């Protein structure tokens, strides 16, 4: 069944292809036209900031740069507890009292700050990483890239979470000289040296893992009797090079190895003194 000359299909196929492409393009037009702004490096004039402005900044960060609302939203869409849905100050108090709480915060503001930088300190039941039995949080540390909020910005978020339900705002307004948010990170975080041994222990979070000064923790070897077990040299080595020698039953690489960079000489001296006197 030989056929005669046929019309060139060029126009028909081209027309069909163009039409189909146009349909796909139109679909993109009927969807909402939203731009995803890159987070702005907001320059907050700290000197002129009022508490209302600070709270508003916190809300802006919560919904914008902090990307919190990506996960923290109302059920059934939420991938994390609906923070905006409940009074976080009351919630924080309940969690601090919960025996599953692993952190060392004493009040709601400290709890919120802690959960920003170390979310696994308390994992709400049902929201932990799969297979971790709710001991590991899937949330990234907010002070690290890619989100990287500065301490001032985190304070603003805390202020917002306190203020939104009418609670009193307990974080202080930042008072340092006006600085761009990024610089504020470095300035705000340089901690003052501790004045007493107890302060130094608290500052470096020793009690998070070690049983000492009346608190209990099973993560690291107990230190309440360390003065009886180790010499001064061994104590120094254990702080500065934790992995040089590992106490039986504990694992390597858990204790941070950078205390040498962080502690002042005075702080180290105070801690050693304290430990040498701890004889159980």
């Amino acid at each position, binding site marked *: 069944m030989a056929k005669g000359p046929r019309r060139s299909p060029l126009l028909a196929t081209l027309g069909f292809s163009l039409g189909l*492409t146009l349909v796909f393009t139109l679909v993109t037009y009927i969807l909402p036209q*939203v731009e*995803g702004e*890159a987070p702005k490096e907001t320059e907050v004039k700290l000197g002129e900031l009022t508490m209302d402005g600070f709270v508003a900044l916190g809300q802006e960060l919560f919904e914008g740069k902090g990307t919190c609302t990506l996960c923290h939203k109302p059920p059934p869409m939420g991938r994390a507890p609906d923070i905006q849905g409940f009074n976080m100050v009351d919630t924080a108090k309940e969690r601090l009292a919960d025996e599953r709480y692993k952190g060392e915060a004493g009040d709601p503001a400290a709890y919120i700050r802690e959960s920003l930088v170390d979310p*696994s300190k308390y994992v709400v039941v049902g929201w932990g990483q*799969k297979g971790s039995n709710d001991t590991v949080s899937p949330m990234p540390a907010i002070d690290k*890239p*890619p989100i990287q909020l500065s301490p001032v910005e985190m304070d603003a978020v805390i202020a917002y979470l306190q203020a939104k339900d009418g609670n009193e705002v307990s974080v202080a307004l930042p008072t340092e000289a006006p600085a761009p948010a990024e610089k504020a990170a470095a300035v705000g975080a340089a901690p003052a040296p501790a004045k007493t041994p107890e302060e130094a222990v608290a500052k470096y*979070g020793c009690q998070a893992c070690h049983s000492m000064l009346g608190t209990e923790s099973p993560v690291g070897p107990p230190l309440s009797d360390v003065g009886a077990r180790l010499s001064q040299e061994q104590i120094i080595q254990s702080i500065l090079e934790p992995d040089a020698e590992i106490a039986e039953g504990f694992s390597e690489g858990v204790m941070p190895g950078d205390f040498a960079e962080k502690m002042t000489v005075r702080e180290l001296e105070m801690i050693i003194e304290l430990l040498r006197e701890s004889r159980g």
Partner: protein
Amino acid sequence: MADLKTMLRLWVRVLAALVLLGAGAAATCADQADSLEQRIAPVGRVQLDGASPLQPLVEAQPKGADAAEEPVFTGAPQLKRRDYPNIGVSSRATVWVLAQMHLFFGALVLAVPMFVLVIELIGVRTGDDRYDDMAHEFMKISLTAYAITALFGGSLALALFLLYPQFMEYLMRVFGAQMLVYAVLFFLESLFLYLYYYGWDAMRYGDRKWLHLTIGLTLNAVGLTLMVVANSWATFMMAPSGVDEVGAVVGNIWEVMKGPLWNPINLHRFIANIAFGGAVVGAYAAYKFLAARTAEARAHYDWMGYTSNFIAILAFLPLPFAGYWLMAEIYAYSQQMGITAMGGILAWLFIVQAVLIGTILLAGNYYLWAGMSRTDGSVRYQGFIKWIALTLVVCFLIWVTPHTLILSVSEIAALGGSHHHVLGPLGIMPAKNIAVNLMLVVTFLSFQLYRRSDKVATVKWERAGNALMGAIYVVAIANIIFAGVYYGYFTNTVYKVGSSVMQVVSTLVVIVAGVVIDAYMFKGAKQLPSKWGQVPDRAQYALFALPIAFTWLMALMGYVRSSVRTHWHVYTVMKDASVDNYIPTIGYAGNMITIVTLLFLVFILFIFWIANLSTTKQPAPVVEGGVE
């Protein structure tokens, strides 16, 4: 179709051979990698896990802060807006177009030789010259496309160095000598490609044919290596590994390449390239079919179009599973990145994706139904078609139901992440999972009916076999719906996610059972005559819809993949401070995607035309005498 069965089997063998070749290459670099597991752990994941439970609270400043005080030679450059050259047109748009064109043609050039080799093997096995001719004809398209790939690759590199010099300088530093390896591979690819194409007729029979097949295999091995090397650049940008938090290189090149997303992307691109390549050569066959003037030509191009469609759909079916793996790895690497892709602004693009995949499935199904008219045996199955069509349409509509309903301007403004509280129950994942799996199941049903339409089973247990097949369809569909509805709406999140695996497995069981049962049931079956060329012209437009939708889809998903980095050149390591560091509106992205698709279409038509030209001979002038 015994030929297609052979094809399938050979496919698997060739793929296995390629994988072995690739694995060998990888193993040489991998031997030292295990001990360095720690160092290749990607930057993001280290942070996600919260590295050490002991980290004191006060250590809140970014690690980069002290590094910035002394001159840093090793970290990634931290750029300011003024560091980016401004050429008057959008740098991002320029790179977007060039990169996408390079990727389109690269995909085509890499994919075509893969199935050409398989078709050539079938030709050798069956001794049927039609296969060899078809394979040779496919290669012609790949060859012309190769020059265009190189052209766009060069332009892309130039544009990147011109418009993003610091970024490229950083990438060069990270990947270093690997770029030279890439250049060598590129040279080898050219060499083998030309040898394979131009040596076709010189090495057509006997031992020489096996030499030719070996060249084809080497060509594919080089091509695949080329692809995975290039993939490592893209995955490094998404999930850097082998560098520290500020981007300083701490690992060797293998550690840099082997990021958490590398293999998922490799697999996904490998499969998608084949589907894409099959779709494009299908359009070529459709074009030639519509232009054909003789019954022989119609028969030839009908058969070629059918084979191309078979390749495209076959490669397309596992693609969602590869995509699922990629997305799961993205979530595992950084939940935030996963949510940026699936839950933020970019989530809207998955509605467009649903439209595109729906188009592909409808076109593929339609082509199969139309193709059933090639044989009289198909009347037995005509009754199913309307139900398949109905299922496809209903599932398609469920799939495109947006899961975020925006009701007011202020909510649009809040779309940095927050979704609306009132959600249509059809908009969330379980409903969509049901829809997608059912679409795949009924597409396979179309395929199975098509395959059966020209056969009559002669085995005794035909009725039992049919009952079993039917029961598997019924129970699988019931199971998919049950899993989606029950676990999706009435249990907790973990079970919801887990049940989607259950649905996927159900779909796979149908496909595997269908292939196995039919293979045995139609062994030695009575073959009804098939009339190639006896297919309506309008069926050819389905073969055009396929590559158009594939091209658009590829550009769209590539855009999503690239955009999840948001305002980072290299995620968590090197910030993008350029004017284009935001995610554009969907309409803008749609325009860009349409531009690249149309541009690709123009180039492809040019390639078809060139391929035609090479077989057109001008009659010699009578007076002067021939020059030949």
